[in-house]
């Protein structure tokens, strides 16, 4: 095991069985990669390539059929507060106010009231939700809900933040805003971030490295290093020639997988 790598995924193969059709599907095939402490790594790939499954495995919400996942050199046996997760569906609890949602993880871990309030206040400020503390989720926009979800996860200060297509349910403008905010925010954080997305732009701008996955069964196709350091990235980076080349490379790489998948589906159907 390499020193310094915080997440270590080694030869992970995962099957799942559809409950109704009883079909067994090979979701992931021999996936291996490592993520360093403090790194921001994005995973992209065509629909159904198992990238979300991979996050669920690292979160400990599912167990891999074969292979090993280690976080901080300890095997993952179940979910834990050291690996926080942000979901596509926001997943903040409708019966808790913004404040109580953000403090939920701290409550679970038994952080005393005063310390808890202090942390919650800090994160509400950080994500710009002052004045919304006592609102319930249904009173918030999608973007605000996802901010709350992110604050809830960060408040526990997990070593690893797993983000499963967190902006996929948002409109394009909100998506761009949140993407840029997350980029800025990540510079203040020391947490390791693993971010799954369909969007090449998101992956290219946010990730220090991008893992491209093949069509199902998902395998690591390639891992690409971002030419621009995170500190120097901002919205203008999108026009940087080196960045454009890098982005186009990612786009072609994913596109090829999507096209193969579509072609195979056509052949299968005919």
């Amino acid at each position: 095991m390499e020193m310094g790598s915080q997440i270590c995924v080694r030869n992970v193969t995962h099957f799942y069985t559809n409950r109704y059709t009883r079909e067994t599907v090979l979701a992931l095939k021999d996936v291996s990669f490592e993520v360093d402490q403090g790194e921001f790594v994005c995973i992209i790939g065509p629909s159904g390539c198992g990238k979300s499954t991979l996050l669920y495995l690292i979160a400990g919400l599912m167990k891999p059929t074969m292979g090993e996942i280690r976080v901080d050199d300890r095997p993952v046996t179940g979910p834990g507060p050291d690996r926080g997760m942000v979901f596509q569906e926001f997943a903040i609890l409708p019966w808790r106010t913004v404040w109580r949602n953000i403090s939920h993880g701290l409550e679970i871990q038994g952080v005393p009231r005063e310390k808890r309030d202090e942390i919650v206040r800090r994160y509400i400020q950080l994500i710009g939700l002052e004045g919304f503390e006592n609102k319930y989720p249904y009173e918030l926009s999608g973007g605000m809900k996802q901010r709350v979800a992110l604050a809830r996860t960060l408040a526990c200060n997990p070593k690893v933040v797993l983000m499963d297509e967190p902006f996929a349910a948002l409109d394009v403008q909100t998506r761009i805003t949140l993407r840029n905010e997350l980029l800025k925010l990540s510079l203040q954080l020391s947490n390791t971030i693993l971010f799954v997305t369909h969007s090449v732009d998101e992956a290219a701008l946010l990730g220090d490295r991008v893992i491209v996955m093949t069509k199902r069964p998902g395998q690591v196709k390639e891992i690409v290093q971002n030419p621009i350091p995170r500190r120097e990235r901002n919205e203008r980076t999108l026009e940087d020639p080196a960045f454009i080349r890098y982005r186009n490379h990612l786009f072609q790489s994913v596109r090829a997988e999507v096209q193969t998948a579509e072609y195979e589906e056509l052949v299968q159907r005919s």
Partner: protein
Amino acid sequence: MAGTGLAEAVRQAKGIEWKRLEFLEAIVYNVGPYFLLLLVWEGVRVFLQPDPRFVPDVREVIGELIYILKNGILVDYLSRSLLRIALAAGVAIPIGILIGFGIGLNEAIANTLLPLIRFFNSIPAIAWLPLFIIWLGFKDQTIILDASYGLFFPVVFNTIVGVQTVPRVFRDAVRTLGGSWWHVVTDVILPGSLPAVLIGIRTGFAYAWRGLIAAEMIVAANGLGYLIFKAQSMILADRIIAGMILIGLTWSFLDYFLLQPLEEGTIRRWGLVQR
């Protein structure tokens, strides 16, 4: 000036005039349906002219209500029925929710209990009454058991649906916050299943009343069921109708003062149901 105009408009929109209108609306909506019912009733009497012993007129029924209020029967019977239904609710609702949770969360419990619950659900509470009388005698316990029986099943079935329809991602979210299985139950499943549990309680109470009235008719010497049953032997149609009105009103009050505030403070406040 434009600013104050807008402020004025907002103030007016939220203001007293609006409140008064809402109040009137509330009266119309709450009293209107009953008024319609009275109209139909009087219409039948005036146009079809049935035997007044069988279809009494509104004034007679109100007179009967005042009569039984004055001689103390109303308060005595009503309070006994209410106490019985409260005890039945106290038994059936917690057990129903507990079993519903067990079935909704655990496949082994579901496989064991669900067939039995389906079987017994098809047997009406009234069919059990003779057996309950043999076991427990002509006592309050028999009535309470019979009322609980009807209340239990809708609570169980709705709780199961409630538990199973809580989005899985909420459980996952709490688990990734470090929450235990118990945290998932108390922080996710319990509040998340509440809309369905409340439907179960509402539906269940209707069955509980049925069981209660039926049991009181046979077992008790007091209570609203007994009031109605006894009136039949004396052909007191006005008293029967007075009893029916009491049952309907009592439930309306309970719903308005217990269940509706509970809904307002929880599932409506959380936006789980919309108006």
